[in-house]
Structures are given as C-alpha cells and as structure tokens.
C-alpha cells in the first residue's frame, strides 16, 4: 500500500477530484494548509503599510492506494493540478505499513 500526498492550489481541487474519481479511487482526505516553496511568499498592502504573506494557502490531499494503482493516481493528480505556473505544488508517495478499518477491525489491503 502507498500513501499519496499532494500539496496543490486550492482552486484546482475540483478538477483533481474529478480526475481521481475517473481512475476509481475509494476515498480521500483533504485539508487546508499553508506553506511556501521556492517561490516564497509575496507582499501586500493594508492601509498603506506593506506586509508579507509568507505562508500561502494550499490544499493537501491524502489518498491511500494499493501499490499497483499508485502511478495511475499520481498521473491523475498531475493532470488535474497542473497550470504550468509557479506554485502548482508537489506530490509525495510513501509506503504504508498497516491500515485498520476501525468499524470492522479489517487489516491490510481489505481495509483500503
């Protein structure tokens, strides 16, 4: 099993979700997060005084998938999230040791 984690632009979430549904994923978890990458933040003015927005708003998506599906899911996220401009985000793929479905106690691939 793999955990696919993607940090993306918030307004791309719908497109990503559609692309992922097409490849048949079972579920996902999303959260609003903030951070910066190579772009860093940017500056804004409030009542004439400058301030810098260091942490830009992003959405983090987490999807648990069987090993064989990971590449397909990554491709779907890239398709949905890409604008070609700076700040499109990143995807991380990591192995997962164990999964437990709380309601039934099922473990491993059955619990996905």
């Amino acid at each position, binding site marked *: 099993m793999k955990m696919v984690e993607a940090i993306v632009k918030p307004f791309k979430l719908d497109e990503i979700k559609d692309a992922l549904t097409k490849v048949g994923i079972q579920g996902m978890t999303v959260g609003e997060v903030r951070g910066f990458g190579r772009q860093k933040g940017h500056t804004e*003015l*409030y009542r*004439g005084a400058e301030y810098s927005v260091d942490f830009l708003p992003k959405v983090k998506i987490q999807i648990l998938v069987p090993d064989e599906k990971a590449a397909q899911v990554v491709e779907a996220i890239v398709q949905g999230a890409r604008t070609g401009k700076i700040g499109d985000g990143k995807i991380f793929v990591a192995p997962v040791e164990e999964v437990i479905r709380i309601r039934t106690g099922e473990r491993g691939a059955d619990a996905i």
Partner: protein
Amino acid sequence: MKQEKLHCRLVSLVIGLGMALFATLCFAEEAPAPPAGSEPAKVEAPAPPAATPPAAATPEPKPDPGGIVTGDRSNVFNAAGDPFVISEPTDKSDPDYAKKRKEFEEFQAQAAKEPLTLRLADAVGRVRIATNFTWTLATGYLVLFMQAGFALLTCGLVRKKNAAHLMMLNFAAYVFAFLAYYVCGYAFQFGAVAVNAAPGNLGGTPTLNQFLLGSGGWGFLGGRGFFLSGPAYDVGSNALTLFEVVFMETAGYIIVGAICERITFWGFILCELFIGALVYPIFGCWVWGGGWLSQLGATMNFAHGYVDFAGSTVVHAVGGFTAMALAVILGPRIGKYGADGKPRPFPAHNIAFVVIGTFILLFGWMGFNPGSTLGSSDLRISVIAVNTNLAAVAASATAMIFWYFMFGKPDISMACNGMLAGLVAITAPCAFVSPNSAVIIGILAGIVVCLGVLFNERIIKVDDPCGAIAVHGYAGWLGAVSVGIFADGTFGAGWNGVGATTYLGKAGLGVTGLLYGDTSQFWMQLGGATLCAIYAFGFTYLVFSLVNVVRPLRVDKEVELEGLDIPEFGMLAYPEDALSGVPR
C-alpha cells in the same frame, strides 16, 4: 489576585460615588411639583389682563411628566415661522412698538370674537408637537442602531484574537456612558437649554432653565435635570434626552476604535464614565445647551456664534480627540512598529463586518443629521438627508481613488473610513449648504481622512487601529470649518439668536459662510473647531495621564500578545469546536 481586587475597588468606588450623588442630588431636585394635570390645562382667553404683574414675577414653569399640557396654540407657526399667537410687545423703545401694539390689539379683538379658532389652534399646536416628538424619537432610534454598525466595523478591523474584546467594549460603552449621562451628563449639557436655545420644536422645555456655572449669554455648564428628575421629568425634555443620549453614545464608541486591542476593561469603563459625565456634556453645553460659544454672536457680535448643526465637533471631534489623547497615553500595540520604526499592518480579520458596519452607520446617519432639526415641521430635513448622502459617497469615492493612485489597489477599509469621514464632515454643515457644496465637502473629507491615517501612522506614530482619530477628529474639525466656508444663507435665520429679522442687511438670511460673504462666520468656525480639538485632547490627556500613573490603563504584555479575549473575558469570539476545551 491582588490586582483584581484593585480594579474591583476602583469600579465599586465609582459606583459608590454615583449612589451617594444620587441620594443627595436626585431628591433635592424633586421639588414638590403638583401633577400638571391637576389644574385646568389652559385658560380660554389668550392674553392675560392688562393688570398682569411684570415678567419678573412669572412663576417657575412646571414640568409636564404626563404629557397632557405640552403643545398648544403657542406652538402654531406658519411656513415662514410667524407665530399664530401675537404676544404683547413690552419694549417701548422699539421703533416698531406702535405697529406691534396695534397687531397685538387686533389679534386680541379677533380672538375674543372667535373662541373656536383658538381651540382649533390649540389642537394644531398639539399635533405639531406630537409630529415632532415622533420624528425626534424615531430618528433617535436610528442613531441608536449606529451602535451595532460601530460594533461590527471596529470588530471587523481588528485581529481575530481580540474580536470578543471589541464586541464587549462596544457593548459596555453604551451601558456605562448612558448611566453617566443620566446621572449628570444631561444636566450639564442641557440643564440651561431654555435660557438661550429652547428647542421650540419639542415645546421649548421651559423647566431646563438654570446654569450651574455662568449665566445669560455666558453659560459654561447646565444645572438642572440631574438624574433626569424634577425639571427633567417632562415629556418634552425626555424626547430631547433620548435623542441626545444616543448622540453622546456616538462620542462614547468613537474612542473604541483608537484604544482597542490594548486597554484594560476597568480603564475603559472609566473612559466611558468620563465621556458621558464630563468631556462630552461640557462642550455640548457650550454649543447646543445655549452656552457661551454658541452665544458669541449675541454677546460679542461674532456672526451667528459658533454653529455646529448635528455635531461634527460636538460629537465627532470631541470623540476623535479624546480618542487621540487616550491612544497617545496607551502607546502603539506591540509589534505595530518594527525595529526600523516602520509601521506594520495588522490586517482586518473580517472585512464583511467592516462593510456591513459602515452601511449600518450610513443608515443611522439618516437619523443623526435630519433628526437634529428635532422636528419634521422643519422641512429642511429633505435637503439635509440628500446632503448627508452626497458627502458620504463623494468622500468614499475620493478615498478609493486616492488609494488606487497611491498604492495600486483601492483599500476596502479605507473606502469605508472615507465614507464615514464624509458623513462626519457633513454633520455640521448639512443644514446650511447646497448639494454641490456637500459634494465638495465630501471630497475634502476623503482627502483629509487618507492623509490623516497616513500622518498618524507614519509621522506622529499614534497607533489608531480603526482610523477613529482621522475619521472623527480631523474630518470633524473640517466639518465645522466648512460651515464657515460653504453655508449659503438659505437656512438658519435667527440661529443662536442672531439676525432673526435681517442679517448682513438682508431679511431672512441665515447662517452664511466665507464664499457667500460672511468672513466673520469663518473665523468663528475656525476658532471654535480648534478650541474643541484642544479642549477634548487636553482635558482627556490631563485626567488619564494621572489615572495611568496611579494604575496603568494598558494590559500586560503577555495578555496583549495572547489576545485580550481569554485573559480579559474568558472566552474567544470564534472558538474552534473540537479544540476549545469546552465539554461537547
């Protein structure tokens, strides 16, 4: 713990003093007044017989708490303001004495022939007063609603961690300042209003007729109506009270915008008591209570005396400069200025609150300005309402465009500040100027507020989170001065007892500004508005510097950094459900 005991003691001391005052003053005021209804309301024949003793022996007027005497034929006027009842001329040296005597005698003869007409006139006068009561009270309710606008505006402009603190300050401002105004504020401001500035539209409030300090044209402090009792327990006086107390409240919540995010709650209560009892009523007496500043026209021949129609200075500049003194004493919020001395912004946490609050204030201002006629029998109300709106939109447009050019983006909070500055600036001149002048005043106010905010923040470094000093102080000063520039003479003949028949050689000419030929009014306005600024700033600075020495008005550093909501009030405005620690 020890500190907590100290504030408790301070607050209870103030309340205790209030109670002691109550015991002494309130009951002393309650002169044995027979209920007004116990005697026949009026005599049928209009004029006293010729043998009536001279005016010196006129009995003390009685209050009318039941509302069964106020409003009779003496309140009937035609459109030009000529009274229905022609009173007996007393001044024999008047060149027109013979003519007036004849008119009086003709009226007497006619009245004797047509008693039914007199009874009808009584009914008409009653209806006029009732209409004006309705207007004054209803517009007062609109002004009261401005409190909600202010709460939203100021809360939206601060950081999320202080949102509950802001709401509580706005709420407590209403409560405590109201009580102070009830105890002595109203009496100080209007206790002698009948001497020089009787509100004829509400029946004249004849019982409020004595200065505590000064007399005649040189009154400094009113002296009747403490605890709204005795002479103030009267329907006409209470209509005035309701309207005026919400005006005082406006000055009361102006200060919130400049001192928030760092003032202790007990310190804030003291500020509100000070505004409601002293700083506001004293200047209010000078200008609206028939006090010396308004009477300088009558006493010293300075134009119409100092003129402020609805309170650019009496309400707004007093609030704005009181706020400035407090903001100077408190100092800037932690982190407002970086190590390099450059200002750092704390952006508004809820701009929707800010915009809705501003619109509620605009709506409330439709009571603030037109209501200040104290009567809808004064048809100028429509012009006032239009002028008020015009200045508001002109100022807001100016602020938006100013910011657009200066900084590349129009700032929403400054667009709102701009609208409020326009409203503040048109408040004094709204009744005396034309719509075109209202637009110009609005544009000037828009520029003044933008420059004022930048000046406070960058040059004198007075931290004013919501822009209250620029909006209410600077634009308020501008408003009073613009009366002296733009007043066109179409309204206010006889204002402050000056020029009832002719002014500058013209019959019926009202308050007139520089552009229409009365330079003296301009100097009067400039001096009066500047005096207001110095008075409000100086008096407040003096009193609260002392208070601050006894006990600091500002919260501890840790409290300020954490946000005042939890340390001062024990709750957050926006608790996160899962993590608030409250059982679910």
